[in-house]
């Protein structure tokens, strides 16, 4: 890397994902509200619609959702270098904190202040994910077809317990059929 500007940009990407890794408590979904805020509002890296695409692709592929999202965004912004910076950034807080707890503290213990803090964060995350869903939904849900798909997916996953991967595959197929019928109509 000869370019100083590029180093600076990669450093800010790395720092952003370091922060995301540090404040993701309770799994990948907890990362979404903050990821959206950082990428859309703070840095202007992505639009809301691109955030939805990122979540969609990350959710459809195997593995850790937070890693998928980091690799997706990093690559989209700065290619391979960006993907490495974002992914390493999001992993480091986990690695350091778990290592410190296991090697230094031995265990996290039953400290009520700490347990209470975790409970507070978990409760807040429920609300934050809801806010993200509504905010992104406003961008995406414009036609009755889209509303039907959204509600169908919610019912299939939350109430029928169907694996999200099947729901996404079915949605892709329905989307293809729907758009080919529509473009067929437009031609006529």
């Amino acid at each position, binding site marked *: 890397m000869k370019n100083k500007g590029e180093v600076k940009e990669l450093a800010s990407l790395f720092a952003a994902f370091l922060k995301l890794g540090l*404040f*993701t*408590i*309770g*799994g*990948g*979904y*907890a990362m*979404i*509200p903050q990821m959206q805020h950082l990428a859309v509002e703070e840095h202007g890296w992505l639009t809301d619609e691109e955030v939805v695409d990122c*979540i969609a*692709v990350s*959710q459809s592929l*195997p*593995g*850790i959702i*937070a*890693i*998928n999202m980091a690799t*997706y965004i990093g690559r*989209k912004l700065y290619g391979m270098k960006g*993907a490495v910076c974002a992914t390493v950034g*999001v*992993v480091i807080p*986990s*690695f350091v*904190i778990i*290592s410190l*707890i296991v090697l230094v503290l031995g265990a*996290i213990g039953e400290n*009520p202040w700490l*347990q*209470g803090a975790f*409970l*507070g964060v*978990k*409760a807040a995350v*429920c609300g*934050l*994910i*809801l*806010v993200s869903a509504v905010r*992104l939904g406003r961008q*995406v849900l414009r036609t009755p077809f*889209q509303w039907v*798909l959204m509600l*169908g*997916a*919610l019912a299939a*996953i*939350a109430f029928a317990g169907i*694996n999200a991967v099947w*729901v*996404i595959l079915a*949605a892709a*197929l329905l*989307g*293809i059929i*729907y758009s*080919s019928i529509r473009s067929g109509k437009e031609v006529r």
Partner: protein
Amino acid sequence: MGFVNLFAAFFRIGLFGFGGGLAMLPLIYQSVQQFGFMDPAEFSDLLALSQVTPGPIAVNAATYVGLHFAGLPGAAVATFGVVLPEFIIMMMVCRFLDRFRENRLVEGAFTGIRPVTIGLLFAAALFVSDGVLTRGPVISKAILTAGAGYFDWIAVGIGAGAVLLMTAAKMKPIRVMLLAAAAGAVLGGTGLIQV
């Protein structure tokens, strides 16, 4: 040989674990048992720790298992192993998407996938509420019949407060989380909530 097994086990977890952290834990449990990296009691410590510490759950679990098995080098090997498949697959998929983004089939697929992703997010909001805002599963018949005692009203209050701070006060999500952590710490520390 141990390090190769450790790497292979976690590479496999990253490759075949669908649905992210929590959904990957059974797969992690099986692999850990198969290779004898730790016993069931230690695994329950892992479960508790990896869910309450910051970071993706499966990364926390990989670091924990690796540390247990072979100290810091083990942690590095397991963590690298669990992250690598995602990285490789995502790089390939993005490359494919870049090339075929304008393709009618890919475009059509995304018109279906985008609204479904919103549905997934609403489902995720329900799943993370399980046992946090309620004392049992959110999606159950019990929630209709159990009455007000089914909910943890302090947690519901914190969740609702977070929504208000985000929307009405336009506060940054990180500040909201820090405030919620502070509120929870005080409530837990002074014994106002049972933790």
